[in-house]
């Protein structure tokens, strides 16, 4: 069997030698931090205009992650391109000829890219948190407060999982364009719209992004939102189940179909 460390090294070379890696990950960080900071500043300025309920359930930690709605899209693009360019370039054939063991190939690639996404996600999460708190003024919280550290680390995990989920989907669909065409509107529009429609919400709260993002909330009914029927870790668990399903689907497609 192929040597796993060797394949990991090879996949690391692949990831670091394409320009898309840098621009997607830098975008994820910059967009998330900048937008989170902007919304935090806005919240501070308009705090008095919030309803009493919203003020009572104000969640400074969650507010400082507001930019993830946009920033996660860059993570989606990163995840999709890591796998999708193998197919669009035709490199997949050369890659599989070099590492014919499908599981070794796929999971090494995903491990390397996910580790990178996770590292960038963690840095993003902490930066967004500190920037947000600095701008929230008297409404801020600290890392030491109850559950805050869990939420900030959770933000990093969330970004890594979004990237990994995208890799799984791209392996199933074998095309960057198709994957982006489905994932970007899904996360940015469909999921966001359905979660605010009362009836659809009961389903939408089990979507990977909606369930997973609960880990970033410190106040369960933050800003007057409904309390989900699962806790923060339960939500992350639901997201992990989605990721596992995407990985399994991707692996089966890679194993069964012609390259």
């Amino acid at each position, binding site marked *: 069997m192929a040597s796993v460390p060797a394949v990991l090294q090879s996949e690391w070379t692949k990831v670091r030698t*394409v320009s898309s890696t840098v621009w997607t990950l830098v975008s994820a960080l910059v967009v998330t931090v900048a937008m989170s900071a902007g919304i935090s500043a806005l919240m501070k300025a308009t705090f008095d205009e919030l309803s009493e309920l919203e003020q009572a359930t104000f969640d400074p930690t969650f507010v400082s992650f507001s930019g993830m709605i946009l920033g996660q899209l860059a993570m989606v693009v990163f995840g999709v391109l890591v796998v999708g360019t193998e197919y669009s*370039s035709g*490199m997949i054939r050369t*890659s599989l000829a*070099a590492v014919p063991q499908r599981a070794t190939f796929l999971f090494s690639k995903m491990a390397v890219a996910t580790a990178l996404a996770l590292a960038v996600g963690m840095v993003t999460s902490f930066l967004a948190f500190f920037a947000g708190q600095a701008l929230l003024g008297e409404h801020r919280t600290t890392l030491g407060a109850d559950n805050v550290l869990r939420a900030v680390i959770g933000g990093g995990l969330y970004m890594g999982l979004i990237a990994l989920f995208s890799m799984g989907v791209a392996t199933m669909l074998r095309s960057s364009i198709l994957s982006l065409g489905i994932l970007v509107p899904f996360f940015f529009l469909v999921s966001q719209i359905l979660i605010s429609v009362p009836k659809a919400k009961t389903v939408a709260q089990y979507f990977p992004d909606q369930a997973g993002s609960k880990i970033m909330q410190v106040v369960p009914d933050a800003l007057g939102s409904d309390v989900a029927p699962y806790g923060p870790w339960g939500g992350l668990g639901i997201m992990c189940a989605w990721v596992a399903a995407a990985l399994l689907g991707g692996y089966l497609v890679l194993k069964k179909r*012609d*390259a």
Partner: protein
Amino acid sequence: MIELEGLTKHFGAKVAVDHLSFTVRPGVVTGFLGPNGAGKSTTMRMMLDLDNPTSGTVRIDGRHYRDLAEPLKYIGALLEASKAMHGGRSAYNNLLCLAQSNRIPASRVREVLDLVGLTAVARKKSKGFSLGMNQRLGIASALLGDPEILMFDEPVNGLDPEGIHWIRNLMKQLAAEGRTIFVSSHLMSEMALTADHLIVIGQGKLLADTSMADFIQENSRSYVRMRSPQRERVLDVLRAEGLAAVEAGSGVLEIDGATAEQIGELAARHQITLHELSAQRASLEEAFMQMTAASVEYHAHAAGEHKVPAKAPPGAPGAPGAPDQPGQPGQPAVQWGRSYEERRRRRSSRKGA
């Protein structure tokens, strides 16, 4: 050594490869020949375990490709033109990724880049490469692991004459080192210059598995070219002897089924004046076209335009101009097989005569 056994591939209703069984042996260049769409690339992809066979097996030195730990050290492959590398990565980095996965040192990457003449552009993104440069990059990737078995899918595609010359010599040299070389082409003339052994397929079926020398012996049509002022008499005499003659213009007759000596003696017996008498051999390209005529999938003209030894009356089964069951696209290869056998029989019966 590569062994194929009953290898078959269906794409939906289309049978791309049909029960192929043959062995590619070390130490020689084995040419893999067939017209466009014959199934060469599909067969090669199955050899690399990229496509799953519908049935049948491929073994590399007795093992399945998927069981090879570091396959680049066993078997190197140039896949179908250019589409096999990431264009956004430099040539060097593309090869480095492959090398690392099979624990091949980075120094070898520089070595093969040098060997194919791409050192100057090693750090350039490969999407700017010309067809020929991409082909060289693909060849470099095949050589990366210094493998015992090398497979090239249409390697001369896109190469300039100097490049063609280079790849020919490279293949011969690699074979001389005792390696197994398997190279596909749809050009008989190219194969005649490089291959020692030939495997010919048409519509996915094996048509011939023979040494190059035997193929030339078997398949190139030999005939006698003759010119005589007494054309009518010649024709009468030939007819009486049961020999077929084809008029080739400007008073030239082409005679099948007899040697120049026999014709000369025949003419002497009948006191016929000859202005020209010579033994001729049709080109290999012509032989190949004849062989695959009925299995050509995408032809510009109707098949059967090529001159065929015209012993069978036109329209008889086996004459390439008259497929036995026109309009049954499902079975042309079967028809072909029959006409091929027919021609073989004719050829050998002629030899015996």
